[in-house]
């Protein structure tokens, strides 16, 4: 039996065990065929659902899948030709190949650099004062690491153990992008970033012990403006005994870099925090919710909802020599990831147990890029703080902005993280009244629609064929064709008394931009 079909059957089998009739498919969102590989993830999640009598969602349609996987993996909407090609492709493995292609795209590098810059707090000004030159250096270093898919353990070691100038050894900015410079401030940030643990939830003795490893980190200025050297103060005379967070002890000799001693411990394959933190985060990024939730609040009294699943991902990371793309691939190819967002269970635990794909509003940067892409317009970003002012080339996409200090009312309004603390929860994708006002009624949105070269081209190309025009507008904005009913509704709108063609096109585009389907990942 081939693997895709098996996956579909596995999920269908769970549904049937729950005593339900095969459900009605809700077009255009659900599909009755799952073109995925039956994976270990599916088995483990399914077991968790079965134990609790929770029915999973159906598999999502191809239309939903292509939009979702583009947004999740490269933070970018698919273009109409890409969608057409994918929908027409009859290869049963087309979802697998699409995932592989996306993981190699340049936008993958951009989008995940953005994510890491949030966690590492890459910004010029307050309360993280990296300043523009160092922001550029640090950003491009992170970007390169993601482009070359640097093994994750090496990435962390570089960040933890480097010394030198903030301009010339960009990794040292890890130690500068911290509120405060005491050993406790550094230890707090290391625990949060690489152990997924809030400092407050560690016992006081563990914190004190951990600070020892960062007690020699020091900073000094140079003659060059805003250059700063991160270096190590000389060690105290003689060897010292230090204690790792898991209670093991180690002798630090005077010639050792204690940060390296810590990094060695942290990146050991059996370290209980290291692989757990990052695999749980990757799961959260793709699935909207952690196996341990929140993903940066790992502590004994916040256990994983599916321990076997998390253990499997951790093992896979170590086995693949810390290849994060391997983890992305495993998750993206699972039937669980490819579920519809329409729940088939009203069990209150359903979402926490991953019984459907959770809807999430597009990230601020992804949303403005999507609005620009569908309208064929662009933004002009700049920042007049701090000096020297930063001007970004016209039309640069927001997911490619290096500096968290770039001024943008849109990004602010839509919950871009302040990059103050590195907490995942800093990014806020909740809707607000202001956002709604902006999308429904701002001149920015109005101008994007009225001045859209794409809408104009589509109107010209369709000539008198309204149905064709409606179809193309749908494909551009919602990344799918309209259903018959939707097409009829739109067509009727065009024919309303007193309606001009231009106004009808604008209103249709405006309406689709304001649908939940456009504003959310689903």
């Amino acid at each position: 039996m081939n693997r895709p079909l098996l996956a579909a059957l596995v999920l269908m089998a769970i549904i049937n065990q729950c005593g339900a009739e095969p459900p009605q498919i809700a077009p255009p969102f659900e599909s009755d065929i799952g073109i995925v590989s039956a994976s270990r993830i599916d088995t483990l999640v399914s077991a968790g659902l079965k134990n609790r009598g929770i029915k999973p969602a159906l598999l999502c349609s191809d239309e939903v899948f292509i939009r979702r996987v583009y947004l999740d993996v490269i933070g970018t909407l698919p273009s109409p030709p890409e969608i057409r090609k994918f929908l027409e492709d009859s290869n049963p493995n087309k979802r697998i190949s699409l995932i592989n292609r996306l993981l190699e795209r340049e936008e993958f590098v951009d989008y995940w650099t953005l994510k890491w810059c949030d966690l590492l707090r890459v910004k010029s000004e307050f309360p993280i004062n990296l300043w523009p030159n160092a922001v550029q250096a640090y950003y491009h270093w992170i970007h390169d690491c993601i482009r070359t898919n640097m093994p994750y353990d090496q990435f962390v070691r570089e960040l933890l153990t480097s010394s030198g100038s903030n301009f010339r050894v960009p990794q040292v900015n890890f130690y500068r992008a911290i509120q405060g410079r005491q050993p406790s401030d550094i230890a707090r940030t290391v625990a949060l970033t690489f152990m997924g643990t809030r400092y407050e939830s560690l016992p006081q003795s563990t914190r004190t012990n951990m600070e020892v490893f960062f007690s020699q980190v020091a900073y000094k200025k140079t003659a060059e403006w805003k250059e700063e050297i991160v270096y190590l103060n000389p060690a105290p005379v003689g060897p010292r005994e230090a204690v790792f967070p898991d209670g093991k002890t180690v002798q630090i000799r005077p010639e050792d870099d204690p940060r390296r001693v810590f990094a060695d411990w942290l990146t050991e394959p059996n370290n209980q925090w290291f692989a757990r933190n990052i695999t749980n985060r990757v799961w959260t990024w793709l699935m909207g919710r952690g196996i341990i939730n929140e993903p940066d609040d790992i502590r004994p009294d916040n256990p994983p909802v599916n321990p076997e699943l998390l253990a499997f991902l951790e093992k896979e990371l170590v086995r693949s020599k810390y290849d994060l793309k391997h983890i992305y691939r495993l998750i993206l190819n699972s039937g669980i990831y490819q579920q519809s967002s329409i729940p088939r269970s009203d069990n209150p635990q359903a979402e926490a147990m991953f019984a459907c794909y959770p809807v999430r509003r597009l990230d601020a940067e992804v949303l403005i890029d999507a609005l620009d892409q569908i309208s064929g317009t662009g933004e002009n970003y700049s920042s007049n703080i701090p000096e020297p002012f930063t001007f970004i080339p016209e039309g640069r996409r927001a997911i490619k902005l290096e500096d968290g200090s770039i001024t943008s009312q849109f990004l602010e309004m839509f919950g871009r993280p302040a990059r103050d603390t590195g907490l995942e929860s800093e990014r806020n994708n909740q809707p607000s009244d202001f956002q709604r006002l902006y999308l429904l009624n701002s001149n920015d949105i109005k101008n994007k629609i009225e001045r859209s070269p794409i809408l104009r081209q589509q109107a010209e190309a369709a000539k008198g064929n309204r149905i064709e025009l409606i179809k193309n507008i749908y494909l551009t904005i919602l990344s799918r064709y309209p259903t018959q009913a939707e097409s009829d509704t739109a067509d009727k709108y065009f024919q309303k008394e007193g309606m001009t063609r231009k106004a009808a096109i604008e209103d249709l585009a405006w309406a689709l931009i304001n649908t939940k389907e456009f504003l959310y990942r689903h």
Partner: protein
Amino acid sequence: MSNQKHTYVITRREALKLGLLGAAGLTFVERFGGYARGEDANSPPANKRTPAKAVIELWMSGGPSHLDTFDPKPQAGNDYCGPFKNPIATNVDGIKICELLPQLAKQADKYSIIRSMTHGVNAHETATYIMKTGRKPGDNLVFPGMGAVVSLFKGYDHGYKGLIPPYIVLTATEGRFSEEGFLGPRYKPFATGGDPGQKRFVVSGVVAEGISDQRQLSRRELLHSLDSLGKAMLGNPQFEQLDHCEEKAYNLILGDGGKVFDMSNEKDELRDKYGRNKFGQSCLMARRLVEIGVPYITVNYGGWDTHKQNFEIMRRKLPELDKGMATLLQDLSDRGLLDSTIVEWAGEFGRTPKILWESPWNGGRGHYGDCFSAVVAGGGFKGGHVVGASDDKGEEVARRPVLAADLIGSIYELLGIDPDGPLPNPKGLALQVMPSANRLKEIM
């Protein structure tokens, strides 16, 4: 930060000592929820007057020179006062201000000048943070600014029902840090965008040009009929939240709420008096917002970072400041609003008293946080007083140092927000709203 001279906050260790950390285990939401239900957090301190209702913050981003505004020093000589050698008398005996502020000189009985502000910080972002929050940076917390705190205690959680959000910024946010701090997006300011000095003040999202109400309604109907995913997922809590926001947005778009931004019914004469520029008309707009009950309005007026050619810039800007601020005070007073409205004028710091004549500054002034001025009026602040003093050259505080926390705490107290009351925060720390040792009792 090493040159910082004062302590502004209760540190965690001090809080522990004081036994304040009993509730530290609670989550933000739990604590927050407690306050939102609102028993005693907002009870007025022992002060019998009716609390002030609103604040207009005139924020001079960049840091205006104290010597060239409210603390002139002609006796310090040309290297300090430059061309502004003839401060003018005000309508209060003994108070003189810069000669380029003649309208404000006629209003001095309405405001008090604090000439002994100090925080010792010369970096824009940190100084801004201190002046807006009353806290020094650190503790891995970013505190909310005054507007967000007022919005917390006098906004939707405490009976504010206006369609216009309770915390408005005219016209763009400052951008140096997130005004709402750890309070989160609910307390973000609404930045109007646009320019009230233009023929039509286009407020982002509220005023759309060229879309009739009829078209709004027809579009909305189309949107609802095409909302296929929403219909397939009825009852999804996220979508319900979005629907709720949409309902509120339409109340503003289609209702009368947005009319406040239409200034066409203001007399030309009054508009001229405020000054036909962005700052002046923003001041007028602020008064209109106060009239409809908005509790906190910031007018951001930048351009005071006068490293070079300070005096040329001052000759351009001071007349705008003079007309806008003076007319605002007079207008509020004429309408009986000054008693219930606090007007605060401040920037993040002052500027170096000694002028940099040499190239490339050519008569510029640098950043200066050791000693500078702020102005308060209305809402229970007495007018016609000077608090504290700087030395002969305006370089050091000579008498009665005033910290940002003292100033902000005083404003809260007048608003009926207990500065010593608890401030909800995500770490569940027992923080106070605005602890300070020396609130401005002498002018309250």
